[in-house]
């Protein structure tokens, strides 16, 4: 029991390594955040003081996060801005579309990203450190840090899979009927005359998604299954992204896989 706890403890807190995956998550997040909101928050869209201040905060903080200047603070600032939009503007003022799961995920991921050493690679912060060490003729600062924040991102990804699968664990999903709703709504229309293969196909797809989400929820924690499961997980999100209006949700999840892949491997790949 104690050895098991020690392993959990080590998994959570003794994970150190290259900071490049954290940095790529940081940069990728900014692009996703811009893809979701930059158009809606351009200054000409809303001519009022609160939206003007929101837009200033949004563009300033995300730009700093992208270039990695005062990275931890700017990333927290981005998260605070997005949560302000989520809670105050959406739930408080009734702005539609800002309280979806994909918008929450972007805000929450920004917060989790602030817990990673995301400024130690691909950033102005690193550039300044390198310049400083060159001037003082000290050794180059390593792109290395404690990656416990990545563990939280991975935990979030697996928890998300578990509860998404839990939500689908009822007869109507398993029978494929819920999948039929999506097919009728987005593809075939209300006058669709079902061929014989329609329900079996929908049932098959529904079962694949359900089983895959449960397997990913637990399997991603086991290193020996990761190389098998990661491509399946990414393929599932790619399919969601291409087939359904999921906005930034799928791409955010794919970005989260960088927290699952060993930091050493990401570093070697980018070397």
């Amino acid at each position, binding site marked *: 029991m104690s050895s098991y706890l020690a392993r959990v403890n080590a998994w*959570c807190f003794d994970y150190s390594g290259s900071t490049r995956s954290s940095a790529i998550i940081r940069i990728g997040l900014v692009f996703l955040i811009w893809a979701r909101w930059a158009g809606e928050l351009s200054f000409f869209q809303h001519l009022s003081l609160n939206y003007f201040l929101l837009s200033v905060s949004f563009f300033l903080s995300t730009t700093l996060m992208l270039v990695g200047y005062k990275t931890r603070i700017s990333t927290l600032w981005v998260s605070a801005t997005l949560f302000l939009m989520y809670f105050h503007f959406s739930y408080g003022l009734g702005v539609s579309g800002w309280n979806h799961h994909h918008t929450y995920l972007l805000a929450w991921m920004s917060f989790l990203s602030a817990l990673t050493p995301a400024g130690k690679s691909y950033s102005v912060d690193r550039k300044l450190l390198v310049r400083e060490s060159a001037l003082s003729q000290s050794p180059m600062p390593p792109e290395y840090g404690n990656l416990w924040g990545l563990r939280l991102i991975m935990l979030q990804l697996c928890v998300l899979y578990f509860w998404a699968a839990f939500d689908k664990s009822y007869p109507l999903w398993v029978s494929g009927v819920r999948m039929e709703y999506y097919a*009728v*709504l987005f593809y075939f229309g*209300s006058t669709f005359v079902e061929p014989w293969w329609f329900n079996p196909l929908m049932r098959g797809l529904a079962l694949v998604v359900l089983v895959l989400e449960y397997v990913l929820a637990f399997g991603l924690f086991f290193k020996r299954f990761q190389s098998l499961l990661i491509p399946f997980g990414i393929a599932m999100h790619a399919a969601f992204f291409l087939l359904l209006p999921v906005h930034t949700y799928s791409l955010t999840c794919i970005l989260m896989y960088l927290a699952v892949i060993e930091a050493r491997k990401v570093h070697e790949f980018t070397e």
Partner: protein
Amino acid sequence: MTNQLGQLRYFIFIVVACFILIGPFLRQVLDVNNILFRQWTMFSQIGLGVHKINVKKSGDGQWHNLEIDAVVKAYRMIPADKPLSISHQDGLDRLMEELCVIYPNQLLQITAHRATLIGGWTLVADRQTIIC
């Protein structure tokens, strides 16, 4: 200083991990309606209310299937490559009104199943006759 940072790290990790683990449980199992916690119920409301519809036209004392997709799209000026999705009761009512405009002085019969959360495709119009 390093020790204090380590303790702070432990504290933040535990709090954030508990939030990640417990939040959806509160929302999805205990039904706690608090927006501070996030449920992961993606797409659970999407598609509800959409209909599967079959329309028949009277002729020669018999009912013949009527292909309404193209004509209703044309009437509504919906591009041909977009699906004609009829959702909720008001959508169905609107369709019936439009069918009467498109097919004046005709006897039509409509069968509609609506997508529901628990009951699946539920019959909401059982060979309902429309006299235009």
